[in-house]
């Protein structure tokens, strides 16, 4: 009998007796003979708990993780420290195991966390309305495209090449479903979105323009003019944003952006080889009834006591079915809780201190490396440089226990020799100097 069930032989006999069935097999007679498996599943035999634990430990040991090398890898997920109080809160059964809060009277904990999460995201993005979470960064961009379609009834999406390659590709994949054309505008020679190209690309059938701040190369975009150009013909302005730099960057909402989405991994979530993390989704007040996913709202109970409920559910699939604003049901509640606790732990002054430390270290690193920058303009936590002999450089870095960053060539043929270097509070000056030391030979030939 498996360790997770409680049906003893005596229980089975008693239950079958009460059902009036001779055996458990009888209960499966509903399944036509022709589709019965009729053989054991071809899977390895079950194991005792410690054997499973040892097996998983052996698999884990075959990965080189971020405590075994100094990693400057970023490109969407960052090696930020996850404070220990997050472990102790998100592993409590009361947060870890409940379902989506369909019975608010016994889910006030989860619902209030959603309300606090929505507030924090609204503060970071400068937009009044945020939902309780979407899956993750790139699919949030696709969700923004869909909302723009429903809002504007138009057929085209203009996206900057500065948006994360995975976001651009997810947008195209989803857009092929909801029937929209995706047009890309290039980056200029300073690695920023080409303003003129944006102005030229938008037309009366453009539902939205998608930008990213900072963009994939780490450039701090000049959002004002870009948003203005993008909205010139009535399209919505969508901006994907990196949350921690928003501690010191003017929030997208200030520039007239209509929808701000983004990847939440850097806010108290693990790297976890790419997931689960959370995506955030914030918009102008007038779009509240068009938002995807869960939204928690404040209210009172029959005794006038403060409480929270899932609100505006008529947008959602379980009520509006084929007229829903999005098909999302299970989202990222536990990961959003980690983000909420992280932002409370960081706090109003902490996020400024952290973002400022990253800004200074990023500029220090770019100078220290002394390589030709692909995006010489302002950067906040990440920057791209050309490395003359990239393969050799990567190899030498590996030997020094350093993972120097992301090969831009994988997504940007035009930057075949490009290296994207990311900075967090864990990348000390000492570690940056060690990376810089590897660049000396590169510099000579540059």
């Amino acid at each position, binding site marked *: 009998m498996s*360790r997770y069930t409680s049906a003893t032989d005596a229980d089975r006999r008693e239950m079958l007796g009460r059902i009036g069935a001779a055996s458990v097999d009888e209960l499966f007679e509903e399944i036509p003979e022709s589709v019965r498996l009729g053989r054991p*599943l071809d899977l390895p035999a079950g194991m005792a708990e410690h054997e499973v634990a040892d097996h998983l430990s052996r698999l884990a040991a075959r990965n080189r993780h971020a405590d075994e090398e100094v990693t400057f890898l970023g490109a969407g997920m960052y090696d930020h420290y996850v404070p220990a*109080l997050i472990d102790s809160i998100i592993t*409590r059964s009361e947060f870890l195991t409940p379902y989506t809060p369909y019975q608010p009277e016994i889910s006030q904990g989860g619902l209030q966390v959603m309300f606090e999460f929505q507030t924090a995201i609204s503060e970071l993005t400068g937009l009044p309305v945020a939902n309780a979470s979407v899956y993750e960064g790139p699919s949030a961009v696709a969700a923004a495209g869909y909302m723009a379609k429903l809002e504007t009834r138009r057929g085209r999406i203009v996206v900057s090449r500065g948006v994360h390659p995975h976001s651009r590709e997810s947008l195209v994949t989803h857009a092929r479903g909801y029937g929209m054309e995706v047009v890309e505008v290039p980056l200029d020679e300073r690695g920023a979105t080409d303003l003129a190209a944006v102005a030229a690309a938008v037309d009366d059938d453009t539902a939205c323009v998608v930008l990213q701040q900072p963009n994939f190369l780490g450039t701090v975009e000049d959002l004002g003019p870009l948003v203005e150009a993008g909205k010139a013909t009535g399209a919505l302005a969508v901006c994907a944003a990196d949350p921690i730099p928003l501690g010191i960057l003017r929030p997208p909402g200030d520039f007239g952006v209509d929808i701000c989405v983004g990847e939440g991994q850097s806010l108290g979530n693990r790297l976890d080889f790419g997931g689960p993390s959370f995506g955030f989704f914030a918009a102008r007040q007038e779009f509240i009834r068009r938002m995807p996913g869960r939204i928690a709202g404040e209210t009172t109970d029959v005794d006038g006591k403060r409480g929270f409920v899932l609100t505006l559910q008529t947008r959602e699939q379980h009520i509006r079915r084929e007229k829903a604003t999005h098909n999302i049901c299970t989202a990222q509640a536990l990961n959003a809780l980690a983000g909420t606790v992280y932002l409370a732990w960081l706090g109003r002054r902490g996020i400024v201190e952290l973002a400022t430390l990253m800004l200074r270290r990023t500029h220090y690193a770019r100078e220290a490396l002394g390589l030709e920058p692909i995006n010489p303009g302002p950067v906040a936590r990440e920057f791209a440089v050309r490395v003359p002999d990239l393969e050799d450089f990567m190899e030498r870095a590996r030997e020094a226990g350093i993972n120097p960053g992301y090969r831009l060539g994988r997504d940007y043929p035009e930057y075949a020799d490009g290296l994207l270097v990311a900075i967090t509070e864990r990348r000390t000056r000492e570690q940056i100097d060690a990376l810089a030391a590897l660049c000396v030979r590169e510099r000579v030939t540059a």
Partner: protein
Amino acid sequence: MTQTVYELSVEGRRAFTPPATDVPEVPVEKLLPADAIRREPPALPEISEPEIVRHYNGLSKKNFDLDSGFYPLGSCTMKHNPKLHERVAALPGFSRLHPLQEPCYAQGALDLMWCLQGALAEIAGLPHVSLQPSAGSHGELAGLLLTRAYHEDRGESRHRVLTPDTAHGTNPATVTMAGYEVVKVGTAEDGGVDLDDLRAEASDDVACLMLTNPNTLGLFDRNIEEIARIVHEVGATLYYDGANLNAIMGRARPGDMGFDIVHFNLHKTFTQPHGGGGPGAGPIAVSDRMEPFLPRPQVVRDEDGRFDLDMDRPRSIGKMRGFQGNFGVFVRSYAYIRSLGAEGLKEASETAVLNANYLKALLADPGIAEYLPVAYDRTCMHEFVLSGRGARDKLGIKTLDIAKRLLDHEVHPPTVYFPLLVEEALMIEPTETEPKERLDGFADAIRSILEEAAEDPEIARNAPYSTPVRRLDEAGAAKRPVVRQP
């Protein structure tokens, strides 16, 4: 009076200690254009670590959870989340692995994904698996995008997708989002798909039929092979919503029933904890003809047993999301499958079906069935649906009132008012990890609520009484939505 973390904030308090600045303290204005610099810091809370912990521990105590008691939420498979899974998911080799780490330094993670793909393929009876979709709905969308790519690849353009009227809300929502038109197919007397209705709707303009089997009435559709034949005959694909897979593991496989595409809900059948509304994962298994269109990357293994992430998939529908999916969820589901093995998974489904039929039998007791008649008098699979019309008409209490009164009995109510086909529906899924005494206890609670209502229906109508808050004003919350701290 409950306070939000923002109302607990006091200027000057803090939990974060910044590391010493080890680089020149260049003023921000020197490094960023004035126009890009935020004027006011975001109004995040200012609060110490002890008070953050007390705030969120306090909030957690207002939640009913799976480790507090019986949670028979139909179609959600609230089965025990083994505690081992949290320990192995936290191993640094998994939790501290960057998604863009070179595959040669991530062989353990890719091996795990490869083995999970193999196990899911064997369980579903379909050879090719993509782990990428983020949840069931996302898997449904991937399935319809595959269907679209498959038909376009054959030069066909189809516009309609059939979904039974009992389908979960995500099915029709997905159909619209995938650019198709929803066409409802009726339900026959026995609770299965109405074959005549299906034959009438089936045409070469139909791209796909989305089914759940067992369906959301908890019944296995005995005509599944005929349904598959009808659908394939018109060149459409047959999509399996895997939310109810917990009923048939080791007993039957969607692939053998003729399904082309299956999504799994790892947070239902394979014990990823629900987390209050996620995270989950919705991998899909597909037949050979659908394989070329699977999202990229795919985990592949070369002849020396080395693993890689194959992006070179020309006919793929492309990426559905960043990186390669919710790897942390894969670790937990993989640990579950290796813990139970073939025998344990089969026993899980058998016990889920046994528990459901037993509870159905307890609730068929005259004193209950009179008010809560079962919707379809057939052997059920892992869940069953009752109708609350008897209680409504004879006792004057709606299914909503029964659900709210159950809160005072410290059990989580079943799913209510779904599927829409059944009036005042109560969808009950006990799962295999509940002991017999808790099934008996739930039946006793239902009986006492009905008996109580016979005396005084007001009690249930104004329930709950023992919960942190009583019934909440949902209408008011929608009229004047307050969705953030003012």
